[in-house]
């Protein structure tokens, strides 16, 4: 038997794949017929209910589209969960917040300096993408300990902009 924890939109489900071929979701036996229709498309029949699911693996999650809704499903095997438990127990507390660029953009303005104390909601950087200006704000109060960008710099998605402590 293999056990998986699947998190979708904040809800965790357990999926048990048994050696006899049966599937249990959250402890309930769930008859399922799954077929791969093309590279990314799956057809699932469950209790007569027909669902078309498009799936793509994105770094940490399975990105899925069904009935016009796009969701990310995070899956963890039982083994992974155990390993993680041990790992986190030994990890120390870290109070740094790294501010990343949420999209590829141009830095229009850096609104703070190293050493500044910032309050929650305070503007840190103004980015321009597709001709729209977007202000990146502090999610929590803190002190600016590092700034990696300057006005006029083009940044990639996920690029480190600054660090708060």
């Amino acid at each position: 038997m293999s056990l998986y924890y699947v998190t979708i939109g904040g809800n965790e489900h357990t999926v048990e794949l048994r050696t006899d071929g049966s599937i249990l979701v959250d402890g309930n036996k769930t008859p399922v017929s799954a077929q791969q229709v093309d590279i990314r498309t799956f057809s699932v029949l469950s209790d007569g209910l027909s669902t078309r699911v498009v799936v793509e693996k994105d770094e940490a999650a399975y990105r899925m589209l069904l009935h016009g809704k796009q969701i990310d499903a995070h899956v963890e095997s039982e083994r992974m969960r155990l390993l993680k438990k041990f790992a986190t127990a030994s990890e120390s507390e870290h109070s740094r917040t790294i501010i990343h660029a949420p999209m590829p953009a141009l830095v229009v303005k850096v609104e703070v300096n190293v050493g500044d104390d910032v309050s929650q909601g305070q503007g840190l950087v103004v980015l321009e993408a597709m001709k729209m200006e977007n202000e990146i704000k502090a999610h929590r109060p803190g002190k600016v300990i590092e700034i990696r960008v300057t006005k006029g710099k083009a940044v990639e998605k996920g690029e480190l902009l600054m660090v708060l402590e």
Partner: protein
Amino acid sequence: MIRKINKVLIANRGEIAVRIIRACREMEIAAVAVYSEADRNSPHVLSADEAYCIGPPPSRESYLVMEKIIDTARRCGADAIHPGYGFLSENAEFAQKVIDAGLIFIGPKPESIRAMGDKTEARKLVRSAGVPTVPGTPDAVSDESVVRDFARQHGFPILIKAAAGGGGKGMRIVRSSDELSTSFSAAQSEARSAFGDGRVYVEKYLDNPRHIEFQILADKYGNIVHLGERECSIQRRHQKVIEETPSVIVDDAMRRQMGEMAVAAARACSYENAGTIECLVDKEKNYYFLEMNTRLQVEHPITEMRTGRDIVHEQIRIAMGGKLSFTQEEVTFRGHAIECRIYAEDPVNNFLPSTGTITHLKPSQGFGIREDRGVEVGGAISVYYDPIISKLVAHGETRNEAIAKMKRALREYEIMGVRVNIPFNLFVLNHPKFVEGDFDTHFVNNYYRPELLDGLNPSEQTVAAVVAALLEHDFLEDITTAAGENHTVSPGKWKASRFEHWR
């Protein structure tokens, strides 16, 4: 005086370039695409008769370089240039250069573009033709104290707007005097970077207005008709997302009256070709001229669906010197049409643009659905251009029928590789206020919260959980057996019977 057009160069990209190429085909006119280095494999290049590269990806070095475009048109023997929307479409200097090069500009005369392009001048002009306008500064302002005086006289909120603008760029609402300074300079700098012109003007901001616009068509002989209104109040970040025609608040009498106003506004600048008169309408149904868009509009398809008139065909016919092929009395309206723009953006994260490569695409089909799209699988949504992917249009006999068709089409639409605003569009179409027709331009601010987007219901959650677990299980087995093959959703091992073991 007919001047036949045999070959049109389309100075644009994406869905609108494809739209215009289709019209050219239907009229047996050769279509020439121009493209930036980023667009070599784009649909508009692939579907054109000829295609020429005009430079690197940034628009400033390609789609906005007048000389390259005109030079390409001359060299390939085009008779005319269609500018589409955005880019150079409302640039009077470009229109003039096209004409000076001996080519036909498929659009209005440069004088008309200039007259309407300066928003302050435009309002003066139409006011003199008896068209009502919102109170505003008569001229562009560069001095903050003028803005303060205006606010004192008319009260907050006020709106600061780029004189050269459109599409919400360089626009700021100011609700109190403490916000004034920051907003004023932000609007100026945004206007400067978007249009190369930092001038702004100020007007009274109407709370809770509707945005209703009229499509007009005018030939070179003074014949002007309107094709009815478009309700464009559903906007996010000052940009339209969902448009429909007719508007639930416009009855026949109001349509006739506003239509005459739109025709008068067009006549005031001796307009030719297709144009749109944008109005704000308040709760008492007073309407005010906002601006005129002197080009083909993104949302023109809903008007086509409801009138049966092909606006791009008419544009080309008019540009050739043809007379309008129908009179105002011959314009008839049928049913209801809705457009949902599908943008690559994240409705959960403040509608931030989402870049990436389209990996999967299965558009909607079926009776009453039209799609205008300029991206295919393998195509990229990049930072260089507008993140629009597609325009989905539903046409039905009644508003409810059109809504039902649109909801069906949105659920059917599959796209992967970028985040899209389909869940947001569904949210709007399902909202009781939208269904009742009781909304204004603040709909999104008033009612939308990302938490309200439809999540998966329990049975959908079960299905998703099972699929995810099966794929992960397969993946882990692969690792143990084949050791480290690069895992995707395994295009390589695609096999219908892959999960046959499970039941």
